[in-house]
């Protein structure tokens, strides 16, 4: 698969530089540093403004704050923490980069031992995410997530796995997937109905295991049972908040009765 074929969501974190030999993926620490750098801009800019507008001891104080904050934010802003997938050495490692200087490689391991898992998003099960080593990337639809997974699997020869078709069990993701059933599943997912059985059928088609008629009947029955299962709403719903106020009129009445009795 070509880089240009990747979905836009994935192109945000997969940069084309260095491909197909090497891929540098930002880790969680990288994003934390960038976030802190952006957050730190607020006190820096306000201190800078104060340092310009004020005078005397206050100006010195804010100048001192600016001098203190500036190098910290500069370091945080330029710091790059990457998970590197390296094809020539067949290794993956984590590397820190500061002002263009590459620090020592850490957590080195062979590429095929990298965990590459396609699974449901932890926060929205209608969405899919990709877990690569210890980093999780939210992708979106099943088609996109499968494409990205296959991209990693084919470019870096990493065994791809999925936790969608037979949740929560993990199976190998078969490389020879046809795009047609995935596309149909994506359309179904977008209609915001059941994505889980759709994904199940998608991957069943992909693995293309021959099933006899009795097992398919059983599957149909279990699917019917699952569909018949009642929808379980979350424990805390807006109407529950409203119910919290049920005793209020009685307490109010009690308060005014006490006031009335006191005046007697």
């Amino acid at each position: 698969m070509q880089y240009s074929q990747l979905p836009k969501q994935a192109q945000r974190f997969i940069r084309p530089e260095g491909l197909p030999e090497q891929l540098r993926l930002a880790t969680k620490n990288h994003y934390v540093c960038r976030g802190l750098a952006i957050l730190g801009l607020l006190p820096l800019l306000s201190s800078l403004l104060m340092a310009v507008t004020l005078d005397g001891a206050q100006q010195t104080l804010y100048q001192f704050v600016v001098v203190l904050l500036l190098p910290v934010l500069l370091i945080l802003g330029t710091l790059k923490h990457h998970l590197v997938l390296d094809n020539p050495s067949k290794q993956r490692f984590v590397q820190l980069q500061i002002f263009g200087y590459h620090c020592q490689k850490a957590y080195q391991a062979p590429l095929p031992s990298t965990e590459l898992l396609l699974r449901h998003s932890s926060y929205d099960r209608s969405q899919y995410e990709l877990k690569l080593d210890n980093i999780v990337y939210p992708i979106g639809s099943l088609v996109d997530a499968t494409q990205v997974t296959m991209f990693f699997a084919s470019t870096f020869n990493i065994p791809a796995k999925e936790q969608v078709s037979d949740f929560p069990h993990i199976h190998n993701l078969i490389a020879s997937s046809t795009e047609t059933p995935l596309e149909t599943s994506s359309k179904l997912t977008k209609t915001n109905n059941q994505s889980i059985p759709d994904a199940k059928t998608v991957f069943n088609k992909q693995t293309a295991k021959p099933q006899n008629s009795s097992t398919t009947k059983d599957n149909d029955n279990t699917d019917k049972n699952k569909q018949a299962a009642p929808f379980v709403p979350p424990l805390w719903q807006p109407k529950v908040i409203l119910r919290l106020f049920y005793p209020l009129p009685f307490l109010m009445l009690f308060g005014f009765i006490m006031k009335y009795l006191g005046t007697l």
Partner: protein
Amino acid sequence: MYFKQLSASKAIMAKTRTQVIARWFFAGLVASLTLFVTAGFEHWPNNEVFIWSFTALLSWHFLFARRRVEFDLDKQLITNKISSLYPLSQQRIPIQNISAFQIRRRLGQSNGYELCIIMDSQIEQLKFDYGNLPRMQQLGQQLSLFCKVPLLSDPN
């Protein structure tokens, strides 16, 4: 709350003795104070009595709000109830429809985790409990063993 197995097929989420005593003590204190101030209501203007009723509502829920969780393997049901002298909310979760329990990080919290129930019949996950990672892992393992449902304890 901690997991307490009552028999081979029944279990509940129970509170420790310290939690129960502390709750009753503080809730009783707040409720007594709320009631005590009503003795001087003849000097209070109406709007203050109105505001008092909201404080009284808070103290009501502080005193009476309860969460009861029961696991019944015979009925294959987890019952999750919230009441405050009157029923507030109830969840009846069929165990046979649970795909897995999952521990995940709470959004916006670095050390906060929640234990969720993943159903095979719906997309929405059901939040069950929250706390720090060791407590969630312990609870998740206990529930997983009792209900014979897999636990996904990878919070990444």
